[in-house]
């Protein structure tokens, strides 16, 4: 169980980091989102993986750790605020520069494909 859980976090991190290193705003935002999933799962698991131990008093015999859950709950909401803010920054960049390159320089790449070969889908 632990191994699979750890691999999941690893996959989320790896995918997130790869997208974080891309040159366009949209993949970077997606990468950040993936990364924050990974981080949330990681923080959550500091209370260990407990089955059937929801921290509702009286519902079960032993409870999972409620503190990481409370922390992650707010982290999810704040993460949403962060994503929204970055999305808007990206849109503003698009509006001001007519371009979505993260480095703020004019890009020479074409935005619309003329030839399907240019894009490996």
């Amino acid at each position, binding site marked *: *169980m632990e191994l699979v859980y750890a691999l999941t976090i690893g996959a989320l991190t790896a995918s997130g980091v790869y997208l974080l290193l891309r040159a366009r705003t949209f993949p970077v935002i997606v990468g950040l989102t993936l990364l924050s999933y990974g981080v949330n799962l990681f923080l959550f698991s500091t209370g260990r993986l407990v089955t059937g131990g929801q921290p509702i008093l009286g519902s079960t015999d032993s409870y999972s750790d409620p*503190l990481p859950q409370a922390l992650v709950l707010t982290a999810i909401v704040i993460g949403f605020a962060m994503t929204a803010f970055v999305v808007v920054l990206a849109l503003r960049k698009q509006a001001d520069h007519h371009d979505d390159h993260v480095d703020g320089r004019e890009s020479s790449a074409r935005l619309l494909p003329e030839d399907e070969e240019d894009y490996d889908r």
Partner: protein
Amino acid sequence: MTLSLVVLLPFLGAIAAPLFAQAGRTAIAIASSVPALVALMALFPYWKRLSEGGVLVQTYDWMPSIGLSLSFRLDGLSLLFALLILVIGLLIILYARYYLKPQENVGKFYALLLCFKGAMLGIVLSSNLLLMLVFWELTSLVSFLLISFWNHKKDARRGARMALAVTGGGGLALLAGILLIGRIVGSYELDDVLAAADLIKAHALYPFALTLVLLGAFTKSAQFPFHFWLPHAMQAPTPVSAYLHSATMVKAGIFLMARLYPALAGTEQWFYMVSFTGMATLLIGAYVALFKHDLKGLLAHSTVSHLGLITLLFGMGTRLAAVAALFHVINHAIFKASLFMAAGIIDHETGTRDMRRINGLWRFMPHTATLAMVAASSMAGVPLLNGFLSKEMFFAESLALNLPGFWAYVPPLIATLAGIFAVAYSARFIHDVFFNGKPVDLPIYPPHEPPRYMKIPVEILVFACIMVGMFPAISIGPLLYAAASATLAGDVPDYQLALMHGFNLPLLMSFLAFFGGLLMYSQRQRFFDFHARFKEIDEKAVFEKVAMRMEDLASTFTNKLESGSLQRYAMLLVLSAIAVAWRPIEELGVFIGANGLSPIDVPTLIGAVVLILCAIGTAAMHRSRFDALILLSVVGLMVALAFARFSAPDLAMTQLSVEVVTIVLLMMALYYMPSWTPIEASWPRRLRDIAIALVAGIGMTLITLAMLTQPFESISGYFLEHSKSGGGGTNVVNVILVDFRGFDTLGEITVLAIAALGIYTLLKNTQLAPPPGDGHGHPWTRDAYPVMLRQIARPMLPLALMISLYIFLRGHNMPGGGFIAGLITSVALVLQYIASGIQWTQARIPIRYHNVIGLGLLFAAVAGAGSYAFGYPFLTSTFGYITWPVVGKFEVASALVFDLGVYLTVIGATLLALVSLGNLSPHSATTHIKGGL
């Protein structure tokens, strides 16, 4: 109390003095002298105790955790310096009254002067080394402002900058040195440091601590090779030069050496570093002084030379030499301050300081000339004046230095040579200025005697020169003894302060210096010609060049690191995270801890595989943005399931609703953006990124695995135990959020609100036209708001609102609460916007979401502050129970109001962000939402 008051008074004076500026120069001068007078009166009662070797220490805690305390110490040494600072300070105040012109910014001048006085007193009275450093830096800063007092002059600004760079740099070195000493001793209190002398000198860090402390002292006291800042600081108004650059600031470095003399001196390193630096400074300063045509330039280099002399005396390491050094500190302060003042008078009355133009002033100002000549004779070391006595002691000490073989001759030779130069430049000061023909082309002609009171400070100082010179034992003996006793930790050698010690070698050296100097001055033209053959180094230009090069270097480095490329930053960030985590992971060794692995069930395995595949798929297919988004949403849903699987129902509900809102948001963003990402990176670049990503992913896997299999202990027992009894709820997660850690939550919803308002502001006046189609030649569908969606969405709204209310109310006991209910309401409202368009919805729900955010924060804050009314701390909650039909029994806690605040803020923030996005397009009312959403 007394000592801290003595230090504080000048600062208070600095605040008060400018208020008197309107009342004229006399008024402000009188006001400015109050702190010094009060301080002198306050210190007077301690004289008897101190003269007997007593020490007064007064301590207040400031930051005990780092060893910094407000502790002040008065002993003979600090008294000597405090008196110099206070008395000469008073004379300067009087002098400056006549020196400054009425139209100048007198208030600023006196305020800065008083600040400086306070800082200087702080240095000499501090008993805590860190506290002393604070004042030390303060003197550097204030002297910068004083040197650049005439800030319209370029030279003044440059000179000030140079002084700040050199002394400030030295201050940094001193800080490091003091920290090292503190580390060795374990305390920054002077008493402890002085008591630990043997420990310090035997410690492995001693050479470093010594070098760093000396760097601080040498820069401040203008020792070679840092001496160049002092001559350039002569751009300051003359009262500043007379005060800072003869009597006080440049003596701070000397003071430091004297203060730490018992703790640091007496080793070979000390001897070589201090004495050779002193010797070089002594000789170079004296030599250059002879060739300066600027009156103040001559005095400045002479000061450098005399500071070198004092340093050399301290470097010699004998106790008698230390006494001689302290004696010369007093003498030099007296005659040099008076000479600077005389130079200022001459500058004031003739309009120039160029000695090639000011000649024969004896005829015009005999009174000033007499005073200046006496002081200059003292500087030259003429008998019956104070300069002679300490110089005589210096000669004697240079002879007594026991160096092997040939080296034994070096110190006396250098001392005599420097003496010859000193006589020569003093002779020049006297002869060139007051005799030697007639003035040449003076800006102010004919010069007059200055105002009567301007001469009084000079007269007092010259009188002191004579008194100390003729009756040293009576006039200065006790003070010198007290200072020497404090410096040498009570172990004062026998010495005699007398006019003559009989005919001996030192006296012969004095004669040699005197006649040699006169001879040298009479042959000065030859020396001038000789000196003229060398190209003069313009230290200012060199300094500027070095400073410029450093700046270029720094900006090159910065530009290299900060290239403006986000991709590069992101890469460096990830790489440094990997680098930081690398060692600990390596040290961990075993990744499966004591608890081992637990078995996995098939549904969970399937879920994990789907999650992993979708995550990798998102990265792999990112170029087709829409597809990537769909996969991302699957990942988000699987994460929600993972939360549910591992006993976190609240998290699962939050994740689910956030997921919906996030995907809607990204979908809307994608509408305005290209649907495809072009290929830009080459294959090697992509392989590099894949490698980085894999390393990061594997690292996270290993860390997680290691953590999950370790046994652990949690502080959550407390929350589980007190949730019901203290917070009145059985849903512990919710009780933590709104009660135990309510203050955190308040902070978090504030962040949420700020983010939403930021989004609103960023998009407020922005318009963005969406691309006409999906990038493959397909136009958007004409059917903007599908009928089916519209028809289903509308009846959904009241239903969703009711569910959210239910979730909200039960949140304290069952999974739910403000965050989740807020998100559900948001989703329900967003659905209306998507289904029917912004205008349609806006017309029916006329709510300004800014107000909702504000109201939410207000509720949360009021709920928290409400507990004040009952005398409890912020956010203390109270609760009771109510039973409603259907909902059942639920408790009404004051935390519920807080949760209502959370609820409203979440709704406001989410909808403000999404509606701002929706309004972005010029024709938002009729826009087509992409993908049939």
